[in-house]
């Protein structure tokens, strides 16, 4: 039985300024239960695409259906109702700095569900245990390392058992151990919660180990897609350069500039 995709982006174009589109004719369908990567260079439009999925922006053209609803048709209350079923991990965690780890994880519960104190405590501990930080519940965000903060933020984003978890550059600035921890957590939480995950990242090698399917973006378009093995074997020169981290290729090493000799004023000498 083929279920309807949880995220369906059809012919979406978007630009902050109509003259300079950031996204051009994007199509993607994310199946329930999958971990999907959206990869590409900085500035290729991946974060904008993520914002379209979370309903922060509406597409200029085309349609975005998320969790069975077209984001264009939602009003403020509808959008908030949809987001209650979504979790989002921000690039640097975005923990509330005036609250402890415990209060951060309890925040969505307190705002959306009136729970008895002992039930709230149990739920928070459950989420913190899932990311291995039950012992850090009393710490303040300033006392955490970058990797720990990311894990707390992850616990917070799954506090309401979301159907869809979005990750915006979840690996940025992590040491290798934290990196590995987050990669494994993304997979295990997705599978144990029965959720669907979308990871926006440029850490290709590591992300390819954890995702089921990849969309590769460049200059606002999807230029390649497939399973990790297909991407690794892709003949597309840009994908090849990106996956293997080659300094020169379709993406030139040099930023466009006038002739080198002219800049050094060699002609005059």
């Amino acid at each position, binding site marked *: 039985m083929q279920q309807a995709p949880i995220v369906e982006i059809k012919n979406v174009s978007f630009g902050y300024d109509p003259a300079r589109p950031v996204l051009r004719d994007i199509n993607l369908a994310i199946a329930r239960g999958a971990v999907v990567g959206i990869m590409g260079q900085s500035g290729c439009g991946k974060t904008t695409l993520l914002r379209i999925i*979370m309903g922060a922006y509406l597409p200029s053209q085309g349609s975005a259906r998320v969790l069975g609803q077209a984001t264009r048709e939602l009003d403020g209350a509808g959008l908030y109702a949809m987001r*209650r079923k979504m979790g*989002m991990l921000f690039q640097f965690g975005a923990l509330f700095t005036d609250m402890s780890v415990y209060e951060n994880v309890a*925040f969505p519960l307190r705002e959306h569900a009136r729970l008895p104190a002992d039930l709230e405590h149990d739920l928070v501990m459950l989420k913190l245990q899932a990311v291995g930080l039950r012992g850090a519940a009393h710490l303040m965000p300033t006392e955490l390392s970058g990797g720990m903060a990311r894990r707390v*933020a992850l616990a917070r984003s799954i506090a309401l058992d979301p159907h869809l978890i979005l990750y915006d550059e979840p690996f940025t600035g992590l040491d290798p151990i934290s990196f590995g921890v987050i990669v494994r957590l993304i997979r295990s939480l997705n599978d144990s919660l029965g959720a669907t995950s979308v990871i926006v990242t440029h850490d290709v090698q590591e992300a390819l180990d954890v995702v089921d399917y990849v969309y590769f973006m460049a200059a606002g378009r999807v230029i390649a897609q497939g399973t990790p093995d297909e991407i690794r074997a892709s003949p597309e020169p840009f994908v090849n350069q990106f996956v293997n981290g080659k300094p020169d290729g379709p993406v030139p090493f040099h930023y466009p500039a006038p002739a080198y000799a002219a800049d050094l004023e060699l002609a005059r000498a």
Partner: protein
Amino acid sequence: MEVAWLRNRLERLGSTVTSQIWRLGYASRFLAYLVVHSGTAARRFRLTVAEVYFAGVLSLVIILVSGLFVGMVLALQGYETLQRFGASESLGVLVALSLVRELGPVVAGLLFASRAGSAITAEIGLMKATEQISAMEMMAVDPIARVVAPRFWGGVISMPLLAALFSAAGIFGGYLVGVQLIGVDAGAFWSQMQAAVDLRNDILNGVIKSVVFGVAVTWISVFEGYDAVPTAEGVSRATTRTVVTSSLAILALDFVLTALMFTGGNH
């Protein structure tokens, strides 16, 4: 050449004026939205009380110390002038009226803007810069209702109380210098003050001033924070703007309110 220069100048002036008016309109809509969405701040009053603590209680030291010194200086300066006319017993009246009508609300407002207003702007601006505001929106929590409104009401509640405490500390400072140090008769000092200071004309008008300043300063603070460019530089600029705009707003509003309240021959 001259014409082009002039036109260029005019254009720039015009665009500055329209963008300022646009910003004022934006800030007004922000205030209206904030007031309409103050349900959370009222229902979960603990959130607002916490902000009263941050904006009000933590400003107490600077307010009380400044009030004390302003009162002491008023007594020194006032005595100097009053005794020339043989009216040194009126020192209490001079100190109390200056503080209650004018210096209490104005100086407390200026101190409040630089102590609490700047802190509110910096906090909201940094929450925005570190994506805490976006995170809240993603958790389907309205940041204006959850973060901004409690800070706004916390400031609005704190400001009149701080102004009253400033005046009280100032009157005590005036008493210390006038009565204890210089030796003005204590009975005259207090009884003339009681007789001359009117509840409605002086105290109530002072309270109205402090409420207006409280709304203005806190409105500017939360708006500048929420509207800040989410970078280190943007937050620093927003904080500066809060202090400058609030101070100017206090002085301008004070002139208008004074003109409305104290002209018309009350005394």
